[in-house]
């Protein structure tokens, strides 16, 4: 339930404007409290009413407010947001408004605008012709851009719970290895199925036919432990079966995945034999070198150098991959984006349409992704170390459901829930 207070002034009693406004609120499905009313003592004196308007959704509230504004209702205390030009490229005005990842609106020329691409810790840039507001990272701001400053004329909406009554509806981080996890995995699997169906609908019948709230993409954010621990086959199957559409990772996940394809090892350990093989520690370097020689992951898969595994599935299924580099990377693989700002931008570009984020066995990439995700995107963070989901939650991604378990077990159980027989 969302609420906004409006005032109504003038000869609103004799003209039946007050009853008309109240009737309009009810007829449109809202509710109201007449919180204050002052009736003019003489016919010349005008009357004044303060009305608290309630509605189930922000959208309905906006519609009601728009309808009653034509009859003179004014949103109480509503002022436009303050705008200041950015002093130079890459520098925000000193008192810039820092975003949260919750749905946010700013008021410009008396009109509330949804802030597009909401994400935490950014600024809001207002652009005219056509008038819109969108988040902007500090580094991307240009001198003279109009940036929202201070807090007035900005409103942040609490998160509406997802329609489905699943584990994401509670939006609490259940971080404990002592808790049963089966129902969480079942809910994740159920949501993946719904998103895959929704995506299919969008592809077959057009974007308008699908449910935009549900999303059309599942994002997986993964670390190399997926390969070390034995989750490679299950993840490949999930990709091949059309359940995964976007992958965020670093250099290591693809390097060890392709190492497994070429050498049957991961970080030098034989994946089947389970012991270190001679000179096995060099395998990932030789793998990276061969992929560099091939020109990239796509070329390595298409030339037959890489025959199976996560990367092979990603290339075959045309998965949107963003490989973000870090300072300790070997090689790196040619596909790795080594400029962090470019990597952030590439991650943001891949997010529209994501309806579920699954973070598995990675701290760095999970938190980086959490920073870019709107709070409304259901998120599950799986790690054997309880510190990782806790950290993700503490860094602001409170919507993430935490699951403390081994990455391989998680992916295998998830795939089995989706009828994998591996």
């Amino acid at each position, binding site marked *: 339930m969302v609420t906004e207070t409006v005032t109504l002034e003038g000869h609103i009693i*004799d003209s039946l404007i007050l009853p008309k406004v109240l009737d309009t609120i009810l007829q449109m499905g809202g509710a109201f409290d007449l919180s204050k009313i002052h009736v003019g003592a003489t016919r*010349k004196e005008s009357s004044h009413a303060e009305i608290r308007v309630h509605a189930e959704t922000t959208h309905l509230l906006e519609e009601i407010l728009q309808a009653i504004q034509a009859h003179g209702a004014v949103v109480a205390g509503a002022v436009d947001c303050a705008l200041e030009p950015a002093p130079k490229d890459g520098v925000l005005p000193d008192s810039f408004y820092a975003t949260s990842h919750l749905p946010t609106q700013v008021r410009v020329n008396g009109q509330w605008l949804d802030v597009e691409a909401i994400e935490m810790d950014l600024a809001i840039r207002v652009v005219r012709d056509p008038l819109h507001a969108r988040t902007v990272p500090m580094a991307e701001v240009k001198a003279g851009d109009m940036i929202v400053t201070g807090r007035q004329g900005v409103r942040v909406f609490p998160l509406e719970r997802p329609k489905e009554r699943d584990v994401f509806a509670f939006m609490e981080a259940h971080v404990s290895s002592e808790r049963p996890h089966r129902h969480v995995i079942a809910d994740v699997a159920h949501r993946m199925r719904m998103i895959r169906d929704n995506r299919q609908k969008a592809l077959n019948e057009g974007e308008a036919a699908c449910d935009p709230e549900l999303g059309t993409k599942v994002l997986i954010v993964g670390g190399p432990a997926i390969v070390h621990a034995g989750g490679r086959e299950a993840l490949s199957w999930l990709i091949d079966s059309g359940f995964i559409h976007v992958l965020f990772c670093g250099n290591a996940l693809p390097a060890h995945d392709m190492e497994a394809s070429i050498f049957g090892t991961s970080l030098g350990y034989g994946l089947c034999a389970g012991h270190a093989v001679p000179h096995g520690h060099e395998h990932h370097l030789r793998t990276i070198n061969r992929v560099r020689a091939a020109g990239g992951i796509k070329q390595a898969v298409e030339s037959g150098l890489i025959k199976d595994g996560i990367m092979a599935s990603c290339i075959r299924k045309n998965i949107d991959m963003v490989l973000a580099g870090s300072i300790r990377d070997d090689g790196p693989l040619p596909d790795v984006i080594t400029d962090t700002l470019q990597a952030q931008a590439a991650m943001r570009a891949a997010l529209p349409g994501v309806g579920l984020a699954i973070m598995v066995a990675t701290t760095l990439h999970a938190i980086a992704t959490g920073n870019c995700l709107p709070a409304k995107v259901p998120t599950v963070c799986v790690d054997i170390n309880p510190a990782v989901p806790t950290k993700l939650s503490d860094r602001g991604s409170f919507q993430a459901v935490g699951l403390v378990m081994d990455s391989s077990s998680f992916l295998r159980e998830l795939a089995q829930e989706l009828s994998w027989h591996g």
Partner: protein
Amino acid sequence: MGKQMGRLLVCPPDYFGIEYEINPWMRVSNAADSEKSKAQWHELARVLEEDVGAKLERMTPVKGLPDLVFTANAGVVHDGKAVISRFRHPERQGEEEHFERWFREHGYHVILLEKDCYFEGAGDLLGFPDIWFGGYRQRSDIKAYTVLSQIYGKEILPLELVSGQFYHLDTCFCPLSGGELLYYPAAFDTYAQATIVHHVEAARRIVVPQAEAERFACNAVCVGTHVVLSAGCPETMAMLKDRGYIPHAVELDQFLKSGGSAKCLTLALD
């Protein structure tokens, strides 16, 4: 307002024409005949001056402002105070400075509303001596009436206009000097209809039939017992006669093409 409108502001139709479309009556393809419109306007002026005994103040027409003839939309005048209109459509906003200058030059205390507060003058604000009514939703903003009520110290009841055809209050609502009201109920929403019924007793309400409302019968000029209105409204004329008024019919079909008639072509001055 509500008093005898003895002195009226008018503007000769030298540059009148249908040059844009801002109401359902206007069609650029349905051009007004320049000679006919001039002849009709001069006949209206003659009736007002000679038959009714009104005093006309003539504004200087301005090329490029075809609707300047509709002086009812100049603003509203009462107690020496002139509140200048703020037109909703950019096509008419150019008229504001000419009306403002005329009022300043003629010694009125000129009051300007805030820029985003649309108000189209006596086209939307009409009344009886003790109570005024303001049309809103089509052209004027309801919030204008809170401000105007303070300026003039009058009770102003806003009435919602729901038909694009009757886009100004003076196209469907005409208070007469004897306290009667000539009006067309279907132009108002149910709340406004109830407000009118509550404030004007049944014996004083004269409901105009649809066919004559569409000839702009309500867009009439009342000076004392004289009522000047568009030709082609016999039922309205008969009802006026029954109540002791002297109706004068003037052919104004060229102005109807623009969505205006007798009342739109005049503004009551103090």
